[in-house]
């Protein structure tokens, strides 16, 4: 691992200022960053530890009620704590389930919510510094295009990158239309902004090395869940090669608002098949106004995967994702 200096900032101001320098990374849980630093995929010269800020300001690490009936999740809240929090389990079960489907018990105890959103979009070639990768080394080429691409994305890909966004909770948060509060260097309030989580991540396009819209020094301070009563009827379904502690081959977050046997509103998002947490609005439109039947679910799944682009080893994901969605909708409407 490359040497670096370590800073424990005393305030968010200090953190954002220090974080705006070149070759600087923030660290919270560290579960992805430390791994990538060992591989020398990440080689920061300065590391800013955000955890001490949570000791000073407990709201950075906890879940609280919002005046509008939603929930505010502090950026440093740990995945396991959020998953077990009663209001999350009761009002947003899809998020609790997605969190518990992610990683392992130890990692969920370490990983922060914001860090989970900002973990690198990655594939085995990104982790292997001996192979070309446009994300790690822009312009060097994509090893996955002609390589072993079974785990790779089929939605949101570009000619330069087909790596899958690995997060489970981000998929649930996209379905719930959560907002992220962001704080950058500089004086408040100009340094603060709020954006829909769907706007946080970038498609790889011609710059796969850029994964989010955050500028240097910007940190997420909170994730806000809007009130969504029908999210009590929500589900996260994750399909993987083994039953636990593996990345999704396909996953889906769904919520249905059903009255008089008719779908009044629907939320659908996918993980494991896309280059960013993927809200499937086409599937939602296909469901709204329909009766909750197998035919309607299948039609929604077809609509969701219409634009899929597969490669040699991952064509199976098109049908797998459809079946995953149909099964999730069937379970949540039962």
């Amino acid at each position, binding site marked *: *691992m*490359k*040497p*670096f*200096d*370590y*800073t*424990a*900032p*005393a305030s968010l101001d*200090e953190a954002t200022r*220090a974080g705006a320098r070149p070759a600087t990374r923030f*660290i919270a849980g*560290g*579960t992805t960053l*430390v*791994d990538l*630093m*060992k591989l020398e995929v990440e080689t920061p010269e300065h*590391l800013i*530890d955000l*955890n*001490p800020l949570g000791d000073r300001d407990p709201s950075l690490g906890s879940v609280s009620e919002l005046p509008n009936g939603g929930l505010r999740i502090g950026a440093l809240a740990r995945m*396991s704590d959020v998953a*077990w929090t009663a209001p999350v389990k009761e009002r947003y079960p899809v998020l609790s389930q997605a969190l518990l489907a992610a*990683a*392992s*018990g*130890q*990692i969920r*105890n*370490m990983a922060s919510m914001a860090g989970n959103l900002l973990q690198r979009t990655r594939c085995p070639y990104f982790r292997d510094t001996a192979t070309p990768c446009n994300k790690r080394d822009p312009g060097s080429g994509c090893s996955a295009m002609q390589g072993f691409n079974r785990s790779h994305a089929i939605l949101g890909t570009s000619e330069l990158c087909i790596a899958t966004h690995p997060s489970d909770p981000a998929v649930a948060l996209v379905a719930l239309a959560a907002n992220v509060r962001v704080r950058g260097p500089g004086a408040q309030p100009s340094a603060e902004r709020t954006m829909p989580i769907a706007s946080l991540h970038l498609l790889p396009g011609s710059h796969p090395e850029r994964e989010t819209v955050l500028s240097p020094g910007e940190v997420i301070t909170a994730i806000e869940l809007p009130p969504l009563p029908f999210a009590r009827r929500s589900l996260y379904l994750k399909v993987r090669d083994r*039953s*636990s*502690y593996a990345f999704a081959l396909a996953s889906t977050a769904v919520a249905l608002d059903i009255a008089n046997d008719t779908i009044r509103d629907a939320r659908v998002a996918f993980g494991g098949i896309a280059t960013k947490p993927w809200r499937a609005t086409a599937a939602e439109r296909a469901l709204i106004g329909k009766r909750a039947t197998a035919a309607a679910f299948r039609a929604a799944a077809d609509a969701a995967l219409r634009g899929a682009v597969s490669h040699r080893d991952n064509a199976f994901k098109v049908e797998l994702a459809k079946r995953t969605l149909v099964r999730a909708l069937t379970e949540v409407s039962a």
Partner: protein
Amino acid sequence: MTTPPEECRVPEIGSEAPDFELAGHPGQRRRLSELRGAPVLLAFHPSHWDPSWAECVRMYNRMLDFPAICLDTGPIARRYGVADGAAVFVIDGAGRVSWRHTVGVAPPSPNEVAEALSACLPTSVGADSGGWSRRHFVATVVAATLAIALTRRVARAEPITRPRAATTVGSGEAVKLRVNGRELSLDLEPRVTLLDALREYAGITGPKKGCDHGQCGACTVHVNGRRILSCLTFAVMQQGKEITTIEGLAASAGASGDALHPMQQAFIDHDGFQCGYCTSGQIMSAAAMVREAWGPADDDVREAMSGNICRCGAYPGIVAAIQTVRKNPATAQRGQR
């Protein structure tokens, strides 16, 4: 009884080593002076900061063909001028101190090591020296090595103070960790993971390095009572936290002496391991998992424990051990401080 002041001084090079009775089996007690004819290596260390040290010296004893004696601080240490620290002495075959090093925060100076080595040159061999020999040479070199090893491990008792302003740590500054109830001060670069700090700097080898990438769980420890992977965090980030390893697990649950933690006993009772490499991580993970909000089924245990991989396939025993602990009201919620 008062101790004469001269006994508190470090014995001079060439002076007779203070004699004392060696610990041994009843009926086999011997004195240091009876070991003459071969060099003897004496290592003093305060036992409270590193339980693995005694094992280290036992290993030296198995490898060497001369005695290495490991001593706690106490009356004998005081007679060698070692009040409350670590020190290494080489006693030559004639029972005289031929090399000594009191371990501080710095390793032996090049001069000290050079002196020790020059003492081994043929010109320094006197007819009445008791016989410099290959063994004496090896003893001196090993002693110098021990002194350097001890330096890395020596704990400095400085109070932990929470920084008020931003603190930046470059390379090799003191990192203060509280491990198994003890304060350690280690000279670490920021890039040293908690796992490496425990194993390579503090000599606490219960946490194992399996994959070193967060995939196997062998390095699982508790931080403030929660299970985490020590390979995926930097030691410098864990200052001021309560770190528990398998070595301190039983004590953290209130056990004393050699008593085991209920989860350790359950793993033995249910054959929860074969080769044992993953076991400390499995037990640490399991001991924390029983305090988490999992359901009662075997499948819940399998899901909760999926971050701990066992190559031997001892999973049925592991699940049985954990379920035994969870189903026993006396042990189900056995917590830590």
